[in-house]
């Protein structure tokens, strides 16, 4: 479908702004081909408006009513979920939590422990330098070196390819 046809349909459907409407009206008035195309589309539009809708069988409504008789009657959701129930549940949980919090606050003695006893400035490095830590250190270094070598070799291989 070309642009002008789309514009003509939009004009017929009333989907254009006032400025666009004026623009298309000018085109229709100035160009006989566009005018003819517009008249054709308008005729088609009128034909589409005459489209008939079908009717189901005579027993259609009765069949549906028989089927829904077996169903529970629908109820509006807002009446199903009463707000008072929601507030009740909220209070049920919130009130005990507040009571526990209040009780904890009232029974707690707020004292600050002596912090300085946990802090010490004496740090002897020799205590930590054991053969085991040296082996772990060397082991980690070897693993890192192998990873690095692997990375380098892969990079070279990829460059060759």
């Amino acid at each position, binding site marked *: 479908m070309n642009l002008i046809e789309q514009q003509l349909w939009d004009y017929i459907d009333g989907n254009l702004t006032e400025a666009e409407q004026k623009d298309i009206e000018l085109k229709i008035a100035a160009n006989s081909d566009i005018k003819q195309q517009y008249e054709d589309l308008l005729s088609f539009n009128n034909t*589409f408006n005459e*489209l008939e809708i079908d009717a189901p069988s005579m027993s259609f409504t009765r069949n549906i009513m028989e*089927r829904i008789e077996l169903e529970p009657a*629908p*109820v509006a959701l807002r009446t199903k979920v009463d707000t008072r129930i929601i507030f009740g549940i909220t209070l049920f949980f919130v009130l005990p939590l507040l009571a526990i919090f209040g009780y904890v606050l009232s029974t707690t003695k707020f004292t600050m422990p002596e912090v300085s006893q946990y802090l010490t400035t004496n740090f002897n490095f020799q205590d930590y330098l054991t053969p085991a830590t040296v082996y772990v250190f060397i082991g980690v270094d070897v693993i890192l070196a192998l990873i690095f070598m692997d990375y380098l070799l892969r990079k070279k291989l990829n460059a060759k390819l």
Partner: protein
Amino acid sequence: MKQELTDLELINDVLTGNTGQFAVLVKRHQRFVFTLALRFAKNREDAEEIAQDCFVKAYKALGSFKQTAKFSTWLYTITYTTAMTFLRKKRLDTSSINNEETFLQLENHTSAYNANVYEQQNSHSFLNGAIKLLLPDDAAIITMFYKGEQSLEEIAEVLNMEANTVKVKLHRARQRLKEKLQFLLKDEVKELL
């Protein structure tokens, strides 16, 4: 004179226990729902089954209907989904007129018309014949737009698409319908219009 109740008033009646009022809603919308179902099912028996299922589903879910939108839009959404599910189940052939096989059918169809049948038909039957040759989606969009009193935005809601997509689809559907009409009627199309 007794004033006709609106859809929303009828729904509220049903929700407050007057379930018999649902029959009024059914009678009011049955023809359009049935027609929409017919766009997908292609035969009356299946379309009637789809349409009945739609109303039963609508009845069951009536409590969840948000009364901010039109009842018809909500109902057509149910119809569209039910019809699509039906199509998937039945695996109906939904191929377009461009399909070679359909061309053959169309030729047979037109030859039947040529046998002095279509001279007796009015424009409605030609139009309905042409609309049956469209893809279900195209036929549904045209039906909703022209007969369902649905705006592009409402159709978009039913089909779960953007309004702009529906606009483009509507343009294409009309173009295809125009072609089908021209194909069916050849020279007579000008006289018909």
